[in-house]
């Protein structure tokens, strides 16, 4: 099975619907890390061990309980070219680590792309569920149900005291990483963001850029996730994150309200200027594109710009990433021409060439 079906469309099926609080929460993601008891972790495993891991896990897909998730497509990473790998990363279906560093890596992706199961990443198994909007509980319920199916067929490395044993000490216990991607332009504009983010990091949560560890926050998008995986139950972790996200949503809404009441003209000017630049620029780099798209999204949310949907903006977010951009123009993009093609693609999408 090739990955083409997953890289043809920038928007996954799940992204075409909207979830709760979708003006502020872009997506909710839950990832569970597991390892098979009888094999060394991928760091030390031989290629034969990793092949066996892949085979054992692939067999589990035959369990009839998987049918409710639609067809699940197993894809071996070794069969993919660099471009397709990059595009899967840009869609968050695989991690950069799986794309670049794994040996005998594979991913099992569901038809609607809301479920992607990574094999031989840092851990043998990483079950990921991705939902639009604020649907953390839904994402967790699905991930744990998939975990239960695997657990019926294979022996996970588990210890009474330490819980699920993972390759990295930061994931031990529940193996659970829950994250919510939020668009927080008003908190950034009103300069409240630093205060909020540092408060968040004091209660066992962490804030990162949208491409995970080590990436910076672009376009006012922040990914908030749990840091602690040991000593808290899954329900506590999810509830804790949920309640913090709800509070941040409240702050962002209040900040938006104040912006529109106290500086309507300034905000309108900013939003419209960004819209103007996106609609007419001949060149734009990815950082500026992300910032301008954030302004336009805020304009759409505040009712200052009509006729654009959040889905169109989501699509642009993915499409303007290098892999998709390169692919959109059939590989005719030279390295120095990225900014030109990016500007062209955005102009076309916004309907003004």
């Amino acid at each position, binding site marked *: 099975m090739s990955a083409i079906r997953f890289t043809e469309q920038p928007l996954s099926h799940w992204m075409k619907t909207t979830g709760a609080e979708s003006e502020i929460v872009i997506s909710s993601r839950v990832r569970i890390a597991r390892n098979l008891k009888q094999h060394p972790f991928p760091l030390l495993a031989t290629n034969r061990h990793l092949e066996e891991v892949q085979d054992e896990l692939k067999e589990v897909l035959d369990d009839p309980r998987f049918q409710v998730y639609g067809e699940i497509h197993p894809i071996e990473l070794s069969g993919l070219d660099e471009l397709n790998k990059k595009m899967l990363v840009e869609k968050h279906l695989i991690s950069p680590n799986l794309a670049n560093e794994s040996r005998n890596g594979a991913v099992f992706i569901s038809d609607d792309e809301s479920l992607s199961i990574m094999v031989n990443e840092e851990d043998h198994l990483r079950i990921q569920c991705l939902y639009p909007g604020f649907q953390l509980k839904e994402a967790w319920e699905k991930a744990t149900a998939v975990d239960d199916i695997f657990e019926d067929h294979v022996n996970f490395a588990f*210890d009474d005291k330490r819980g699920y044993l993972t390759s*990295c000490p930061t994931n031990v216990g529940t193996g659970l990483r829950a994250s919510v991607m939020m668009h927080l332009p008003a908190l950034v504009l009103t300069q409240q963001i630093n205060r909020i983010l540092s408060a968040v990091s004091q209660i066992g949560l962490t804030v990162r850029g949208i491409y995970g560890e080590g990436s910076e926050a672009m376009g006012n998008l922040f990914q908030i996730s749990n840091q602690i995986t040991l000593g808290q139950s899954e329900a506590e972790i999810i509830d804790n994150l949920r309640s913090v996200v709800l509070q941040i949503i409240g702050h962002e809404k209040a900040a938006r309200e104040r912006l529109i009441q106290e500086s309507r003209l300034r905000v309108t000017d900013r939003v419209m200027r960004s819209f103007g630049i996106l609609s007419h620029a001949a060149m734009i780099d990815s950082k500026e594109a992300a910032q301008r798209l954030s302004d336009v999204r805020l304009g759409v949310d505040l009712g200052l710009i009509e006729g654009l949907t959040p889905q169109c903006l989501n699509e642009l977010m993915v499409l303007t990433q290098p892999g998709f951009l390169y692919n959109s123009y059939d590989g005719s993009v030279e390295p120095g021409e990225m900014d030109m093609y990016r500007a062209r693609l955005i102009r076309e999408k916004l309907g003004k060439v």
Partner: protein
Amino acid sequence: MLCQECGKRPASLHFSKIVNGDKSEYHLCEACAREKGELIPGTSGGFSIHNLLSGLLNFETVEQGKRAESPENLRCEVCGMTYSQFSKLGRFGCSSCYKYFNDRLDPLFKRVHGSTVHTGKVPVRVGGAIRTKRQIDDLKRRLQDSIDHEEFEAAAQLRDQIRELERQISE
């Protein structure tokens, strides 16, 4: 978020440092982190969680270096990873490493998670006894609750359930 040091470049490194129990937050750009010596040498500018962990673990080794048992002799007998390799890589080699390095893991987990014991999901197949123990703990809490509320009929039922589960465990 801007770098708290130069205030110009965006902060790309976010971490907390705990020194003598005082926790401080750092949000730095790469250039300032390098200047302040917060980048671990030999990582070519990359600053992954494993480098950080490695820092924590090596720190530990220095701190407890006077102990009789030197960590160099600690070795996982299943995959062969030594404790000093683990402390450099920040990752375990296999699930048995947890057993062989067990004595040294509590301080690490305490630092990373603030806790050392799992209280979450337990797999049905391998976690039979521990699941039952958790169930008993839960029933005991409910029993106390019933007694507090003087619901003695419910309490009697809970007591019987607990006895039954305890009997299962002892078998």
